[in-house]
């Protein structure tokens, strides 16, 4: 594609990379909002619009709530996410990938495993939506997260993430 700014177009894969979202999920968003364009090319103006409409946020990008310090890096990440979940509340379902966005590589893989553990324990509830998996917090179980944030008690399935 030409390098001239006004003619620069992005493929759907490039847009997905820029937004840090799975391209299939991006395609489904288009399917729900009038369909994919005839030519699968997008310009700069499309990207911000998509970010807003898909509700894409970056929990780790801002580092606003990730204040938990821990001598163990993995445990620190787990406690930080727990703290962010409590601060956010997750009363209304949130895109699961928002909880990962901003992290990369092994850190993202770890947090993904932690989210799956919380889902299996029923602390987080999953709500399938067409574009992405959405999650919310079961507030009757939030004490478990509070204990994790304090570092006072860890359920064995969570402790196994760093042991």
């Amino acid at each position: 594609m030409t390098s001239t700014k006004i003619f620069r177009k992005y493929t759907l894969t490039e847009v997905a990379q820029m937004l840090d979202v799975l391209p299939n999920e991006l395609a489904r968003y288009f399917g729900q909002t009038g369909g994919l364009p005839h030519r699968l090319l997008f310009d700069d103006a499309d990207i911000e619009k998509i970010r807003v409409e898909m509700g894409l946020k970056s929990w780790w990008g801002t580092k606003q709530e990730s204040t938990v310090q821990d001598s163990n890096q993995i445990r620190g990440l787990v406690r930080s996410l727990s703290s962010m979940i409590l601060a956010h509340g997750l009363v209304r379902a949130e895109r699961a990938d928002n909880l990962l966005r901003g992290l990369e590589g092994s850190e993202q893989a770890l947090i993904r495993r932690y989210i799956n553990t919380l889902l299996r324990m029923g602390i987080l509830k999953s709500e399938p939506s067409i574009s992405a998996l959405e999650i919310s917090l079961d507030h009757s179980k939030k004490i478990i997260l509070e204990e994790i944030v304090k570092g006072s008690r860890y359920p064995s399935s969570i402790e196994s993430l760093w042991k």
Partner: protein
Amino acid sequence: MGNKQIQSEITKNLDGVLRWRQREEERFEKEELKLQRDGKLLQDEIERLRDELKKVEERQVEAKSERAALDGKELEKKRTLLFDGLKSENSLIEERTSEYQKIQKEHESNLNNMLSIPEYAQKIKEYESFLDIQETLAQLPESYRNATMTHHGVVRKALDPVFTAMNAPLPKSSLAPAALTVQIFSETSIEELREVAILLPIRFEVFTRWREGEETLEHKILFRVNGAIAAMLKKVGVVRASIREEDFDGYILLLVSIYSELLGDLKVALQAEIARINRYATELQVSQLSLNCIWLSSDIIESDEEEYYDEY
């Protein structure tokens, strides 16, 4: 000559009886031999028939069990066909990707040639300068703003041929039209449909390694079908559903699970969306490809293994 002894009638009659007996003995001897032969033949025939009956009975048992295995054999044949089809259709996509990329590069090269013409290059710089200040225009004095807008109009008009060339449809390949199969598997009747699996001739690694390499027709078709599934769900009023990618022996299986009420015919809706792809998707038209839906029983792809997977 000696005296001829005259036999009495009794003697004659007794001799007659002896001859009769001899004849009878001979007759019975012959008959007995014949009966023995016939008996032997019949015994042989009985043996042969017994053997034949045994074989027929054995074949009956075999045929019964072979018949019972027909479902399995049919499935096996279908699976073989399905895999061969996936492989050959994937090769077709690969072949058409090269063709599509060639056409696309020619188009880009033509556009770049046009952009390198000094007259256009200058106008593009001016156009881009306008875009950079566009948001601040409102803060400028009206007379300056009007002059800038008028000039931008002139620049935009001068660039019309470039925009026209950029938006011109890509030419179609001269390759023969070909179709790809979208295999749709469902278990229950259409009214009770809650799960649909969609198998595509697209390698699973296109999904897992999507960040690597250039976007090909495999990627684009996968995106189109994902878009079609989402549009189908919207069309039939489904608000809660999940779509999961699974590895089906190296190919992508999209597993659609529906958790809310269906307000329309899923089959009709999906077929309409696939038809829409065939009508509008530029990359398919250019590469002379189209998508065909077939609905199949989910038995073909079901395995006995229960797999555990992470939700996210």
